[in-house]
């Protein structure tokens, strides 16, 4: 079963990290990559650019309205996500334990439907929960 691992953190905090601290966090992600790839749980990793780069698209009656950013309403921002192929929730929980959990929040949410493109040769990877 496919699980998404959603990562939330404070961008104020991420921006304030020293290079050494940043490296320590990335090292934990590296270990997570290695473990999940070795054990064939790894499906995808996505790291998002800063929320400052984002726009929000809305529809106002018939007109599309593009507004800048999400306003920083929350103290934590959505930073990125992993997709893991695990036997059950228990295994997914076990897997994420080596991620840097001290900073921010990690949410595990099962995937109902997944379809992805392999951009290099345009083959598709489809995973259906049912």
């Amino acid at each position, binding site marked *: 079963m496919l699980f998404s691992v959603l990562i939330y953190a404070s961008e104020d*905090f991420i921006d*304030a990290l020293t290079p050494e601290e940043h490296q320590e966090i990335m090292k934990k992600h590296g270990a997570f990559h290695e473990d999940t790839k070795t054990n064939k749980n790894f499906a995808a990793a996505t790291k998002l*650019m800063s929320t400052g*780069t*984002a726009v929000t698209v809305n529809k106002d009656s018939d007109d599309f309205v593009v507004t800048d950013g999400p*306003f920083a309403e929350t103290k934590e921002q959505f930073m990125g996500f992993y997709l893991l192929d695990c036997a059950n929730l228990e295994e997914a929980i076990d897997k994420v334990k080596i991620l840097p959990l001290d900073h921010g929040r990690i949410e595990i949410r099962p995937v109902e439907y997944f379809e992805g493109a392999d951009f290099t040769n345009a083959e598709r990877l489809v995973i259906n929960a049912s």
Partner: protein
Amino acid sequence: MQSVWLSTHLKAARPRALAALNRAFGDINLAEDAFQEASLKALKAWRQDDLPKDPTAWLIVAGRNAGIDLIRKRSRETLSAPEDLEPDYDGAHPEEDLTQSLDQAVYRDDILRLLFTCCHPVLRRDQQIALSLKVIAGLSVEEIARAFLVQTKTMEQRITRAKKRLQAARLAYEEPDSKARAERFSAVANAIYLVFNEGYSASTGSELIRPTLCEEAIRLARLLVRLFPEEPELRGLLALCLIQHSRRQARLSPEGEAITLEDQNRNQWDRKLIAEGNILLEAALRRATPGPFQIEAAIAATHTRARHYQETDWAELDRLYRALEVIRPTPVVALNRAVVLAKLNGPLEALTRLEKLEAPLERYASFHAVKGAFLAELRQAASARAAFEQALHLSGTDAEQRHIRQKLADLNSCDPAAGQFKRP
């Protein structure tokens, strides 16, 4: 290790917490002292595995209490409390109105007010930079002094004088109207770019780039973009800083010598920063309200699109500099445009353009270096040498001087009698 992470939390919370304290007390000095007290409390009370749910809110509450204690202490010392130090707080339950103070809209105004205070037009540029780094970024006086290669005492005096000047100016704390708001954004963006530029092309000393200053400027710009994504000039500012910073590895040789855009190894440019800068710029330009930072970012972005210097889109750069000249008609912009025009139409026309810049840029090393390069290209060796020597005389950093000496050496390496120059 633990205290290191805690100090990172303090650093991350600082701008917002300090901005809230500045509003509560209407006094930057007191807000700083209160934040300092709150930080000391935090270092004792916090544990890495058990942080408060909202460290910023925690610091604001602790800082308010500490600030009120300081006011009481000072009023006992002076027997009467100075009126302008009185907080608009009744002393009962500080956490009660915290929900309101943590409201995002209030935060946004607080931060803008704090930033604007630190780079208020009554302050000199060097004071704006020093105060922004000290108050908002939270750098120590020693760190700032080191970055500017001055004695700690000198920097301390600079900051004290800046604060005195602010006090003397008796800044109004009322809400700005939209015109005043736009002016604040512009002042704040300019000050952040000053900080970045001081790091990017240090004006004096042996180091050409001071990454701390660049990184602090980028951190402040990111905070502003996060709080005010609807301000295209702030996105332009961040885009510009990121794209410039993407070249930091390529700009210096292993010996610490400056490498010009022409000779940089473009594979060393940080493509991640370039991608982020480009998308920020695209998002900003959707607003169709161009400003100097967006145009400068577009200029920087144009360079990133050329895989080799020879592929540079000079016509596009000329269009952008022309637009910049309209918005910001300064001699330095005109000088940059002359460099671009030399590429498009040859050095003779560009040299003519330098004539009217001679007076305003007389003391500017780059002007003479550019002039020397044009003259060298026109094979006027003696005049070129004079211009390079003038540039050498005016340049502030060792690396800049080495670069100009190299130009002089290139001149000398050809036979002056024959007027032959090594082709670049």
